[in-house]
């Protein structure tokens, strides 16, 4: 069908209205435009069925009482009202997610940058080190959560054993409500520092022009001066990229908490994504879950917007406006 219309369009002088709408002026252009749409078709459908459609549906559900079957019942703003004023777990889970992100994002970024700088020194065994740092990113989050639960075991875990060597009585970590969040933060940092962010930093570091470094050296700049005044500005776009992805990733934290602590003990690791999951898929409150998801998305959009507007002050694009 589409093939036929493409062939019709190749006949001289027969540029159809459709082709004109596609922005084509000659038969070849028309043929190319139609083929372009045709090849795009799977993604166009995917975009509508799995992304745009669900976004609209989720927005609608958020104003309804809906259990996943039957007809959603319109209840106006009641879900949002419940979230903000009538849900004991809403604000604490949000606060906890921020607390977690506030540590994981900056420390994780700094860690990734340090690892990247170390790997960029051209020392022996760089490839092996890079692989070692990257290992956690290859590991299923479930396995990470299980093995760290075992490492954090209060009595026979190697972490508390190590602490006892230096005379410290280790806490109960994941089983202690005052320490569980810290334990999860440690796991996340270990799991993500050597991952994609590090690889992207390495690429950024290698894009720093040699000539600038040499010039600074001739002017007598020290190691730190060069890093502060040349390397950092030159890799600031990379830093922004990693920052935005880091914030999104941190706020979405789910699997390690779900597997290692199930959100406990006494809700100490009950993150926002766990709250959405539980409301939507344990209680089948699809309407309320959708409202929570929308609150989450709007928050993320605001964060990304703030980061992008602030970025004009500290990000330097060597190539001009791009």
């Amino acid at each position, binding site marked *: 069908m589409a093939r036929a219309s493409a062939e019709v369009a190749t006949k001289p002088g027969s540029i159809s209205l459709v082709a004109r709408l596609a922005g084509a002026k000659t038969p070849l252009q028309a043929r190319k435009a139609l083929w372009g749409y045709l090849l795009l078709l799977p993604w166009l459908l995917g975009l509508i069925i799995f992304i745009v459609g669900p976004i609209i549906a989720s927005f609608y559900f958020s104003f309804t009482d809906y259990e996943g079957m039957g007809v959603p019942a319109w209840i106006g703003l009641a879900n949002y009202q419940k979230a903000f004023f009538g849900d004991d777990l809403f604000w604490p889970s949000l606060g906890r997610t921020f607390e977690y992100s506030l540590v994981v994002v900056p420390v994780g970024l700094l860690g990734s940058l340090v690892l990247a700088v170390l790997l960029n020194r051209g020392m022996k065994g760089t490839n092996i080190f890079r692989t070692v740092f990257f290992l956690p990113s290859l590991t299923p989050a*479930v396995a990470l959560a299980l093995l760290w639960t075992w490492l954090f075991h209060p009595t026979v875990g190697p972490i508390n054993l190590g602490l006892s060597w230096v005379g410290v009585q280790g806490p109960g970590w994941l089983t202690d409500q005052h320490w569980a969040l810290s334990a999860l933060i440690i796991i996340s940092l270990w799991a993500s520092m050597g991952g994609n962010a590090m690889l992207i930093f390495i690429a950024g570091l290698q894009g720093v022009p040699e000539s600038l470094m040499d010039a600074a050296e001739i002017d007598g700049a020290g190691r730190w001066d060069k890093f502060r005044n040349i390397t950092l500005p030159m890799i600031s776009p990379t830093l922004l990229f990693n920052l935005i992805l880091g914030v999104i990733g941190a706020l979405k934290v789910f699997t390690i908490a779900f597997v290692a602590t199930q959100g406990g003990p006494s809700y100490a690791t009950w993150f926002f994504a766990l709250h959405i999951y539980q409301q939507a898929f344990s209680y089948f409150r699809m309407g309320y879950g959708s409202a929570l998801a929308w609150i989450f998305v709007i928050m993320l959009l605001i964060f990304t917007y703030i980061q992008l507007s602030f970025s004009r002050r500290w990000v330097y694009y060597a190539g001009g406006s791009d």
Partner: protein
Amino acid sequence: MATEEAVLPDIVRSRTFSVGARRRAGWAPAAVLFYVLTLALAVIFVFPFFWTVSSSLKQPFELFSFPPTMFPITPQWVNYATVLQKVPFLTWVLNSLIVVALNTGGVIVTSSLVAYSFARFEYRGRDVLFLITLGTMMLPSQVTLIPQFVLFNALGWINTLLPLWVPAWFGGGAFFIFLLRQFFLSLPNDLDEAAVIDGASFLQVYWSILMPLCKPALATVAIISFIGSWNDFLGPLIYLNSPDKFTVALGLNFFQNVPESAGMPMQHLLMAASVMAILPCLVLFFSFQRYFVEGIVLSGIKG
């Protein structure tokens, strides 16, 4: 082979993989300090894996002896066999492989077609659609999750593997489309234009000219897609509910919650199962490390 190398984007070809050739070699005090620091960090990264493997080979009584032993007294390889008896681990592996294969196949076929369209064709709305595509990378999956569940539920696909791979056949996702489009753009246009003038169809150009040239990029896409789909947890958690349908990641969590029989500790078995769950991705990574790293770097380079 030589042409494949020649068409790799500059950044990938030279810089990343010949790190610091310019740096002076030698053992200044600072260099020693940095080396020791790197080594210490490497130990921190490797130790949890070492502990996992070591625990997986211990006997139950050794698990809780104090102080814990570094190495098992006699390695109990039988633990791995015990896992296979206790839970249908091989079924989970098979399910995971089905999902991974169909998922990766869908991603490769459809994301390359869509990327071809974005890179080589001109039509109204193309650039807007491409921007929308990039925008979806920022979208957290939480917001689409519930309606997707409702959709698959209405189709009767709950507790089947279908929801885990069918969407991959609809364009494969923004990240892969972006990656391949960048790659297509780095290939010279003359080649396929000449072929079109000689009468080749666009599908022939795609299949006989572009696809062979972008094997390295396709390998990258395949590996990232494999690892992402093998490690996925939330999808299987939502869509699968009977243990014989589980994937490895979900099964591992299920295994954690299997009650201990007669107070016998299970940690050695859990660790053995974890090792088996990690292994495929490690093997894949070591075999195709180059492609993997290139892909990540390429995606971040435009920052």
